């Protein structure tokens, strides 16, 4: 397999071999790169909100808590092991300086929720580029396990 897979908002894709996973323009949303070095299996998840309180839970991938758990479950069915899976995250920015509502702090709440859920699930967080006020595009090269962040008017970050 050698393909470029695009992950939308409230979406997740699993890649193997030489796949390249990409998700565009993370603002207050958070992108999570899951990676198992041994089986070279990676997943990229794009969540939008911190906690799933929706009745019916139609779309688990929209939220940090249900999204992370669903991704781990699917990775395990693909042969990845929870003890080896590591995660890198990006996003959680604040795009507009506005007061009022829950608009201003959604990014920050997303970051905190992701940290908490990862700790609860016992998943190691290898690196993060979060906060600030820049949009980020996140890529995961499944072969090497390296992540790349692209932002407007800034140099790319590889980590």
């Amino acid at each position: 397999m050698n393909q470029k897979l695009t992950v939308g908002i409230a979406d997740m894709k699993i890649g193997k071999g030489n796949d390249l996973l990409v998700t565009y323009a993370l603002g207050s949303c958070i992108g999570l790169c899951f990676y198992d070095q041994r089986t070279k299996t990676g997943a990229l998840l794009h969540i939008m909100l911190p906690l799933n309180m929706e009745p019916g839970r139609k779309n688990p991938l929209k939220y940090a808590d249900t999204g992370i758990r669903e991704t781990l479950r699917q990775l395990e069915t693909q042969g990845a092991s929870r003890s080896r899976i590591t995660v890198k995250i990006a996003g959680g920015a604040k795009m507009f300086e506005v007061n009022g509502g829950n608009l201003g702090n959604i990014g920050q709440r997303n970051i905190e929720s992701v940290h908490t859920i990862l700790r609860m699930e016992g998943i190691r967080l290898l690196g993060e580029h979060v906060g600030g006020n820049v949009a980020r595009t996140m890529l995961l090269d499944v072969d090497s396990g390296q992540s790349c962040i692209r932002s407007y008017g800034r140099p790319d970050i590889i980590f």
Partner: protein
Amino acid sequence: MNIKSFDQLTSMEIDTLREIGSIGTGNAATAMSTMLGRQVRITLPEVRIMGYNEAIEWIGGPETVTAGVLVRMSGQMNGIMLAVQQLDFVNLVLGSMLGTTIENYENLDELRKSTLVEVGNIAISTFINALTGLSGISVDLTVPAFAVDMQGAILAVPMAEYGGMSDYLMTIGGNFVCDNKTVPCRLLLSPDIRSLNFLLKKLGVAE
């Protein structure tokens, strides 16, 4: 009956919202025309109910850099209003008002930024004034906020705000036409569902 999700709107309700969009955008175009000293018309406004990823494709791809002016509404109606200004529009405004244009957004200095914020703010305020005059709803607006970045992330702001309630984003808005050329500046009104129900009731179209 109150709707719980944007996809439950009837065609009559959508027509009413389109009319609101038409009057709002029309008023904004008149204000814009006065500011720029040129004739500004509008395209037929649209009411769109879109999934997240569909909305981002519709506005022209996630990574395209644009300028966004954002104002929050509160009071009897809650929501967000966004003016998404693409490069052609930015140059039209800067060319008419300051006599300069830019190659890309990195050339925006403080004066140019504040010009764009003000033009966006006036367009938004005129739109909301028309809406409140028509419906008799009182709405407070915040000071405008400004960002230049990937438009996917800018559009994600109203999505995240109402994401807990709906998998869809509803936008009412239109484009401007200046000198027979469509200049991409979209005015997008995104109310929350409760406010939308209230608005439709006030206008007498909710069943």
